[in-house]
């Protein structure tokens, strides 16, 4: 399969245990290019573990992971960004002491990591192309005024979106978001949704872990439901939420109830 026709993400037979506890069992699903997909399930279902396996934070026990047709299963985590896969964390992981602009410059690393790039004293040039590019990306998302602020001083919703800009600058074409809407107020949630829709319009494929079903409904075409590390349902949210297994996973079986 060529990279152009390959799905953004293809997972097959994926398994992972931690100290004998099976966190992911024989999991297979695909995220077609351009189809915003939600990964949902009760707490502890293994959603974040899937992100950690795809991004390479953990190694897999068994199975295969392909990003845009490239097998990344055994690829070192730091090389995976070059296949276009990027992720966010549940707690935003920006560098708190650095300015917004500097955080974005770290995001550019994958495209500017030759020895010459590393030793260029770019900060001596007020209008260096890297800074211009980062500022332009911020302006485009309506965040331009925060460029020189220290990250730790910014509102939560703004930080979440700066995380997205950083991933964009890293060239992300498959973006995995871990609870993007958690902790946001309604207006921040709307801003985030607009931001994500702009990314989708640019051709970025999103895989979203999210508990807020209204949010999922508003951006996701497809849903994959996990429970105890296994896929129990897959399809459009309206259909999936009718399925017996899904209802049981969320509200318990009839016997328990």
């Amino acid at each position, binding site marked *: 399969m060529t990279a152009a026709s390959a799905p953004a993400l293809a997972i097959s037979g994926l398994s992972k245990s931690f100290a004998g506890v099976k966190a992911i069992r024989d999991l297979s699903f695909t995220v077609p290019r351009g189809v915003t997909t939600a990964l949902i399930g009760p707490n502890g279902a293994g959603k974040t573990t899937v992100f950690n396996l795809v991004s390479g934070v953990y190694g897999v026990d068994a199975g295969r992971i392909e990003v845009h047709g490239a097998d990344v299963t055994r690829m070192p985590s*730091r090389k995976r960004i070059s296949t276009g896969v990027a992720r966010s964390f549940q707690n935003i992981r920006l560098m708190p002491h650095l*300015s917004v602009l500097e955080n974005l410059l770290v995001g550019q690393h994958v495209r500017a990591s030759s020895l010459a790039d590393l030793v260029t004293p770019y900060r001596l040039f007020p209008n260096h192309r890297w800074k211009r590019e980062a500022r332009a990306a911020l302006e485009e998302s309506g965040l331009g005024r925060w460029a020189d602020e220290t990250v730790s001083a910014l509102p939560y919703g703004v930080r979440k979106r700066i995380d997205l800009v950083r991933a964009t600058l890293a060239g992300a074409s498959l973006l995995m978001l871990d609870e993007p809407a958690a902790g946001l107020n309604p207006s921040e949630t709307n801003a985030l949704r607009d931001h994500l829709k702009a990314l989708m319009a640019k051709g970025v494929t999103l895989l979203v872990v999210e508990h807020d079903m209204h949010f999922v409904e508003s951006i996701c075409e497809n849903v994959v439901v996990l429970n105890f590390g296994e896929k129990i349902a897959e399809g459009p949210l309206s259909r999936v939420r009718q399925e017996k297994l899904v209802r049981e996973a969320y509200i318990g079986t009839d016997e328990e109830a």
Partner: protein
Amino acid sequence: MSGYLTGVLVVLAFNVIAAYAVYLPLAAGQLNLGIAGFMAIGAYAAAFLTNEYMWPMWAAIPVGAALAGLVGILIGIPVLRTHGIYLAMATFALGQVIAAVFLNLEVVGGAAGYPVTDYAGPYVVYAAAAGVVVLMLLISRTRFALCLTAVKSDATVADLLGVSVRGVKVAAFALGAAVAGFGGALYAHHYSFVEAQHFNVLLSVFTVLYVLFGGTQTVWGPLVGAAFFTLVPELLRASDQWRYALFAVFIIVFMAVRPQGLVTASLFRLFRRKAEAA
């Protein structure tokens, strides 16, 4: 310039160079407690080349620095697998081992010390220290420095963004070792004498203290820290002994209240904002 002042400024220059040797790996979150060992490598290597092969010191000193850097790479690769307190212990032991090796190496005089035939005057030392500071300022303006901060701040995220965390750590450790070797080589040629006992634990620990006091967030921290710890005790020298105790109390209180050090990134932003407002 009086001999006394010259002497103090020379010590300041050496302390500044040593501080930057500690700063580079620390900027990536790696505490090297064996910096004196790398100074010893540079000092003995350069002195040996000057004495035995009649090398001019302008060639011997950079080679001494390079050799210390090379040892930094070779040792850094295994040692940097450890983290935190274990890395501190490993580098601490390393510094001790290197000094002990030179203490027993008869070809460079062993415990009797090793006189050096060539001499670097005070202005050479000042210029060398200024050169190191300028080099560090330049480095701090690069992506490499940004990678150091990223690795220190969040190694997982830096890795996922494509930064070679191990590569950055080893590079910072080896560059720091090379700077230490440079300072050691220069030291040997200024004082015309090397002895292994000089490169002891206290030298490593004091140098780390300069850097922590000055602050590791910006490139100015080590300079400020080294200057503070060199000059203030000199000012106290003429006074009563009890003022030294006061100095010690001040350091303890300061580090408790401001663990991030004297010079921080937010301090710079504050000044810049005030300058813009004015």
